[in-house]
């Protein structure tokens, strides 16, 4: 310690003493440079390792996007702390984040490429595997056309991964057969945004939490799924006891325990409840007339829109512009009394909810995730929650915030912003000539190469593989052989002869089990990258560790294959600088005050930067003239041609499969705090595996008693598509209501998706994992 350091310590100690004299009981964290803002836990004692360096990165897991500091020592990650400089989590993480780096060290890590020869996977040099992938892809295009090859990526792809995938599939090969697992996660949120506002992603940011008076959680178990954000809600309430957290859900969870009020509704009736709230708002004259008059227009679409159960299902909406009176008339069926009968929520509680939204003195933040998005009317329910906020003018200002939470760490940054979906380009849709021209110009390809018609969304893409319309599929950073709904059809499909499946992953999974080629991938901090989280914050990390064996980043795998197929000119970047080079090229697509991205150096320096990043400033609240340089006037919903936000009337429509005499229970699926998705990473972290070692089925105690099932006993679940035997859990982590069961999907030995249904929202293509019918028996 230098003399200067000593003097600084003395000065700090003097100030602390002065504070203690003035405020008895005041507590300061232990003297540590990493002291968090706003009073977080002091940095814990760490071993004296002179080689230990702390490096910043966003967390590998959920869509909150916590900033972490990873302790690197001698080429290994050895510790994690929350980054106190990150405005997202302010030094806090959750149990997954704190142990995240342990996921890199599972003993069965894929370090060598594997190729299936005579039914068996044999290791081959990486170069040989890449040669094979390229030649197989070229051969398939030659014999069956460019739409016979497809790529399936992920909301856990980094932004460069998604960008080169898009350039490769859409710019080089010229096919729109590019999808990402965010289709199964956020697609309805996207179409919700597009239909209501014309532009994707929330207009507010996490800072809304610091201003809101009421938090309404719609169908999401935020305490387990966005835990660090939920802690921010709890902290807000601790400091302001009048703040209320309302849990509106289909089952009681940890979130219900922490909430001020938990209100249960019957599955799918969220549509009716949202309309009932709008009805009450209008009936009580709580409408913000000026806001509606100046910034809102009213619309109606098709009803009875189907469920996508048949192959090649298509849907095209027929929007009609209507007026407020017509909208009010259509809401006539949604009185609180009628909705009480439908949803099981007492009329008094519906009125109470409406009064919270309608009270002009209360700032309301609505938060939702998979309950809304994994829904056969997911686009509609997203529209409806915006309707509520728009009617009362509670939007795009600090604290008044309908906030669509994202599930994955970069569904926003990669799949949505880069556009790794069949209908998207890095800016605009493939159907828009202007967008194709821009892409052609930046990519340096003839505009005719970019296909103007979308091909398949994810479920349809896997159906196409099953039918043989797609013969080559490259899967990266996702595990569809655990997550596809109605799993058996799609597993059988991928296993058919004459389907060439390439899988890039970090560990063996049920998806690598059906692969013809396995490419070992560098994981997270083993390569440089960026993620984009729920609040439009792009976060960068350097390469902190070498990947093991021959593992290679997904970005570089795609570049290597593309070069082998003759596209070197489109992927010219040298390896040493390819990430900043890619960033520079990608950000050209997003230029302009509506989406400008921060320059590379800024991203490296800061704990993330929110876009739009205009003239050195983040646009925290979009569409609001006070904060958004792209907005003209007080509010300007510039995504729509009429520069207004669109209220869509959407009715309640029942799900395609409801419980009946033969299959009398609802089956709901989801996650638990400790495991991420299919568990391929988190189950190899001993602490997390020990906490929740295997899947189970949650039962209501009354149902359990009636069926003669005790806690831990084996239960058989049967649906029209499959059956599974699992241990029962009664009043453990959560309690479903009577007539409903819940199963987490992290366990590859208990494939609950063999029972689920591949119905989807016709507008977004996103399947509904929360509602199908099962039989429950003692096994």
């Amino acid at each position: 310690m230098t003399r200067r350091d000593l003097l600084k310590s003395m000065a700090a100690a003097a100030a602390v003493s002065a504070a203690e004299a003035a405020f008895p009981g005041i507590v300061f964290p232990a003297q540590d440079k990493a002291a968090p803002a706003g009073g977080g836990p002091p940095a814990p004692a760490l071993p004296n390792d002179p080689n230990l360096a702390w490096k910043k990165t966003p967390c590998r897991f959920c869509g909150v996007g916590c900033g972490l500091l990873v302790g690197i020592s001698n080429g290994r990650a050895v510790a994690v702390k929350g980054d106190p400089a990150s405005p997202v989590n302010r030094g806090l993480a959750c149990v997954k984040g704190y142990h995240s780096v342990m996921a890199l060290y599972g003993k069965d890590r894929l370090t060598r490429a594997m190729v299936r020869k005579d039914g068996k996977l044999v290791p081959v040099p990486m170069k040989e595997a890449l040669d094979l992938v390229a030649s197989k892809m070229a051969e398939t295009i030659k014999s069956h056309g460019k739409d016979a090859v497809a790529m399936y990526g992920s909301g856990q792809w980094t932004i460069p991964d998604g960008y080169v995938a898009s350039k490769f599939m859409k710019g080089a090969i010229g096919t729109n057969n590019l999808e990402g697992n965010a289709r199964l996660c956020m697609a309805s949120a996207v179409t919700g945004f597009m239909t209501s506002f014309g532009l994707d992603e929330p207009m507010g940011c996490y800072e809304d939490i610091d201003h809101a008076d009421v938090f309404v959680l719609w169908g999401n178990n935020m305490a387990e799924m966005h835990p660090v954000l939920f802690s921010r809600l709890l902290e807000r309430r601790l400091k302001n006891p009048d703040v209320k957290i309302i849990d509106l859900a289909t089952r009681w969870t940890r979130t219900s325990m922490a909430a001020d009020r938990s209100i249960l509704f019957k599955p799918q009736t969220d549509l009716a409840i949202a309309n009932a709230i709008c009805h009450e708002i209008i009936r009580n004259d709580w409408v913000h007339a000026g806001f509606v008059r100046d910034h809102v227009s009213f619309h109606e679409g098709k009803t009875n829109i189907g469920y996508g159960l048949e192959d090649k299902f298509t849907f095209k909406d027929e929007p009609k512009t209507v007026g407020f009176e017509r909208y009010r008339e259509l809401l006539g069926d949604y009185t609180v009394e009628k909705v009480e009968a439908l949803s099981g929520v007492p009329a008094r509680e519906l009125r109470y909810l409406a009064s919270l939204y309608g009270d002009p003195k209360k700032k309301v933040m609505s938060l939702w995730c998979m309950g809304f998005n994994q829904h056969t009317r997911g686009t509609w329910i997203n529209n409806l929650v915006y309707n509520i906020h728009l009617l009362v003018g509670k939007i795009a200002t600090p604290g008044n915030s309908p906030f669509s939470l994202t599930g994955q760490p970069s569904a926003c940054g990669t799949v949505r912003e880069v556009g790794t979906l069949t209908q998207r380009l890095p800016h605009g849709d493939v159907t828009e000539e202007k967008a194709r021209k821009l892409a052609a110009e930046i990519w340096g390809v003839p505009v005719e190469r970019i296909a103007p018609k979308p091909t398949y969304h994810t479920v349809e893409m896997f159906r196409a593989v099953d039918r043989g319309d797609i013969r080559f599929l490259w899967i990266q950073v996702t595990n569809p052989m655990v997550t596809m709904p109605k799993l058996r059809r799609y597993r059988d499909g991928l296993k058919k002869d004459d389907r060439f499946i390439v899988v890039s992953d970090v560990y063996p999974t049920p998806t690598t089990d059906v692969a013809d080629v396995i490419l070992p991938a560098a994981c997270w901090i083993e390569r440089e990258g960026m993620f984009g989280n729920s609040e439009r914050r792009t976060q960068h990390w350097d390469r902190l560790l070498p990947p093991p064996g021959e593992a290679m980043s997904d970005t570089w795998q795609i570049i290597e294959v593309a070069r082998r197929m003759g596209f070197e000119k489109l992927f010219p970047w040298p390896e040493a600088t390819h990430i900043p080079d890619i960033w520079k090229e990608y950000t050209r697509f997003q230029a302009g005050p509506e989406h400008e991205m921060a320059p590379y150096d800024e991203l490296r320096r800061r704990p993330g930067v929110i876009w739009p990043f205009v003239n050195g400033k983040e646009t925290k609240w979009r569409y609001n003239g006070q904060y958004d340089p792209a907005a003209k006037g007080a509010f300007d919903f510039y995504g729509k041609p009429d520069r207004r936000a669109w209220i869509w009337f959407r009715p309640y429509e029942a799900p395609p499969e409801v419980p009946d005499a033969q299959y009398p229970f609802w089956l709901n699926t989801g996650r638990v705090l400790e495991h991420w998705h299919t568990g391929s990473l988190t189950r190899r972290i001993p602490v997390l595996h020990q906490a929740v070692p295997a899947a189970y089925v949650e039962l209501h105690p009354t149902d359990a008693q009636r069926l003669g099932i005790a806690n831990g006993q084996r239960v058989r679940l049967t649906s029209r598509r499959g059956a599974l035997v699992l241990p029962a859990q009664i009043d453990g982590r959560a309690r479903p209501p009577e007539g409903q069961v819940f199963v987490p999907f992290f366990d590859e030995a208990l494939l609950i998706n063999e029972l689920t249904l591949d119905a989807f929202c016709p507008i977004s293509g996103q399947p509904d994992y929360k509602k199908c019918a099962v039989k429950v028996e003692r096994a």
Partner: protein
Amino acid sequence: MLRRGAPMPIKSYLAYPVSGRLDELAAALRRLPGCEVIPAVNRDLLVLVTDSPDEAAEAALGLELARVPALQALALVAGLGDAAIDPAPPISSARHSSGGRS
């Protein structure tokens, strides 16, 4: 007292945020050059330690501090100089014997 012309002092302050804006204040202060911030865990108050290389930087820092919108008040506690002289004693020498920090 500091000898005139000596390398500039290290100063510590108690910084009071405008009501409810502790986090904003901490973030803003951290961005200023030579500033170290230690927020209290259970009070809206933080300790600011500044370290400037010379007079000019110290003066500039003073202006920057005055411009921080979330800062309500700044109370100077100690000024120490990295020169070959004894440092000035802290202005507040009251000590409270209870624990709470290591």
